[in-house]
């Protein structure tokens, strides 16, 4: 089947336009493996995530993409039987070092989950909770400003400004998810992890969230796990394809979706059995 005429043409290359500086790496994974008990869920993953860009992780269910995402803010620590090996560097510092505080890490690496999961409290409290427990703000006025800023960045402020004291669970699904994004932003993170953030949303709400992701890219490094290839193609600059716990292919989104190198990627994104 191999029909390569000139393999030099086919090497996946990070696309660097002339005049554009090589992007700085925000998150760098080196040899990351995860075991759940005796079962290995992730095999020796190396991945660089450039700063201020969107990296999407795609792959079939159980391929380890969510597991990998959860390594980055150490959410796997919650699972007793999970064991992570390898290094994950956030701005050059290994987050699995003993001297790194996981609470601080999670303030720096925000997370948005598959199902919108606002706290069953008011909209204001939802946003204010993170800053409050981290003691980011000095006064009530600061906190108010931070809440407003976070909601504005999440594109939600105008919709909810008159009902900040109403429950967050009373919002629509898409609004709830943006509330969760605002909540993640409120702790001033560097990286935002999103685990299938639109899987519970309708197409309009999805489009709004995708537009938001594109805007957030200017200030945050975003990693998004998605089952929708179209979504990965729409929102991300780079795409990584996971399969059976291996990182199969990583590269420029444009290339991955038009001309993937690995036949497994090809089969997956074109919807073939395999």
């Amino acid at each position: 089947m191999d029909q390569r005429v000139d393999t030099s043409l086919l090497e996946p290359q990070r696309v660097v336009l002339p005049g554009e500086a090589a992007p700085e790496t925000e998150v760098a994974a080196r040899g990351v493996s995860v075991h759940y008990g005796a079962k290995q869920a992730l095999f020796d993953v190396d991945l660089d995530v450039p700063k201020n860009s969107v990296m999407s992780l795609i792959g079939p269910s159980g391929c380890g993409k969510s597991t990998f995402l959860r390594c980055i803010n150490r959410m796997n620590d919650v699972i007793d039987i999970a064991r992570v090996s390898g290094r994950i560097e956030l701005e050059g510092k290994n987050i699995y070092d003993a001297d790194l505080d996981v609470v601080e890490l999670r303030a720096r690496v925000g997370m948005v989950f598959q199902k919108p999961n606002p706290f069953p409290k008011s909209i204001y409290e939802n946003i204010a909770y993170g800053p409050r427990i981290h003691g980011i703000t000095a006064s009530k006025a600061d906190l108010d400003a931070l809440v407003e800023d976070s909601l504005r960045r999440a594109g939600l402020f105008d919709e909810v400004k008159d009902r900040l004291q109403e429950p967050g669970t009373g919002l629509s699904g898409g609004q709830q998810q943006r509330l969760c994004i605002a909540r993640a932003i409120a702790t001033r993170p560097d990286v935002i992890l999103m685990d299938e953030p639109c899987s519970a949303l309708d197409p309009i709400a999805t489009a709004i969230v995708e537009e938001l992701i594109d805007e957030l890219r200017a200030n945050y490094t975003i990693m998004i796990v998605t089952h929708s290839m179209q979504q990965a193609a729409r929102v991300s600059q780079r795409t990584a394809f996971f399969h059976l716990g291996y990182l199969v292919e990583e590269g420029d989104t444009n290339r991955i979706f038009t001309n993937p190198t690995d036949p497994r990627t090809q089969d997956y994104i074109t919807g073939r059995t395999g």
Partner: protein
Amino acid sequence: MADTATIAAPDSIHTSDAAHRRLKRRYAFETRFKVFGIAAITLAILALVSLLWTVFSNAFGALYQTNLVLPVSLSAERIDPGATNDPSVIRRGDFEGAVKEALRTALPAASGRRERRELYGLVSDGAALDLRELAMANPSVIGSKEPRVLLASDDANLWIKGYLGSIETLPTDGRATPIGTTGSIEIVAEANVFQPLLTVVKESLLKKAAAFERQAMLQQRGVSYFENLLSQLGDDASEQRADYERQITGYKNREASFTEKADAIRKRAEAPGGREAVDSDLSSFLVRINGGVVKVREVSADTVRGDVILPLASEAPVAANAWQLQRITSSEVSRKVSDRQIVWLEELRKSGNVSVDFNTRLFTSSNSRESELAGVWGAAVGSFWTMLVTFCLAFPIGVMAAIYLEEFAPKNAITSFIEVNINNLAAVPSIVFGLLGLAVVIEFFGEDIFNQDLRSTALAGGIVLALMTLPTIIIAARAAIKAVPPSIREAALGVGASKVQAVSHHVLPLAMPGILTGTIIGMAQALGETAPLLMIGMFAFIKDVPTGVMDDATALPVQVYQWSDFPERLFEMKTAAAIVVLLLFLITMNAIAVLLRRRFERKW
């Protein structure tokens, strides 16, 4: 061809007759299922309604209390001769004498030791105690003579409220003439007025005769038994034979004596007229004539002989229907209140000296041996202290244990062993916890640590019940914590909350309604628990209202159990009343839990 024959066309599978029959069967099954369900619920509701009906209808009798309102002279010389106004002097005053004097004044007809004693029996011991309380609280009443509310004795109370029978008036169609006004007198009437009364007596005689005949028949059985044995004996067993013959003779003699008695009674019963005694196991009959009351002892068709209870004014003949023949529907032996007392009570009632009031004493006083004095307040307060201890121990410990097990404990053999044991503890019979309380709380804590006898204190009871309630609370709390969606935990951890923060800020508030429900179930169980409390001595008779957890106390269910054991009719009612109070206690606890739950839920 085979294929097309076996597989019907798709549309006919669901529209054929067979399909309709299948569908019908399914609907029939559904209908049956619903009917069974409704029947089960109906049965449950009926059981509940009949239970509540029994309890409430019984309890109703305890809600009202009979009082005698009589002028009582609290003379100074009797109570406080030195006019000291000193409570300790007043305490020793002769209030009982004052009550007795009041009774004697109200019913001067009672004379003689026996009658006096019956008279005093109309009033409870509590009447004097009430007066003492009054005088001690307000010494200015000393020296006054005013109508005072005197608590009636339990029997008087029951009679007035109609639980011991009633009085019905029989027709008196002839003139009656009393012979004598006091003591044992005779009343002669025209037109066989007393014939119905005589008939009643004779009917009872017939019943007695029948009873004797039955006895005789039983003796006859003995005779035939031994005769049978005798016929089987050989010739050589002469000793045995003699014994049997003696037995037979004995039976025959007894049979003859019973038969004789039965015949005599039957003869009396069947003969017209004659004079018969009115036994105390028959209804009592009274004659009211010339302002007096006579209790009938003997009766013939036109004459009665009886004892005067209230003296007659004169021996003047009285026209038909101007005098009364009355029947008390219960017999004197079947009730503790005597005919004489009944007459007095009716007299007092007629003169307006009897009042039936709401029984506040039931709710304000504590236990007593006297049924009319007993109340549930002491037990309710005891239950309150016990429950307070139980809650203060079981709730925090249970919730914290649940949080630890559910959120923090590593999943290994040790924790699963602990889990299994907690689940098993919930099924341990409560009496076992009583034993534990006896051994650990009283022996160890009480003697070695507090150096105080904890027996029958609310503290000991509360500790034991807390131990019993813990597994229920832990299981319920764990279920509630587990039911909190993991997404909330993840959300909290995701913004950088520590595990404890995630649990205390988010998981616990969301689990609280469920935890409270479980706690209330456990507390309700503990509230109704008797067995372990019996083990640690909370069965003791305690008259005082406990003022703290270290006081001797009893609990409502224990009190219910105690009262249900007492023979007095009034205690039976008060048992029901105490059950109602227990239910109210329970409803209050539930209401508090519902309110708390609302509060937690309103915070989303």
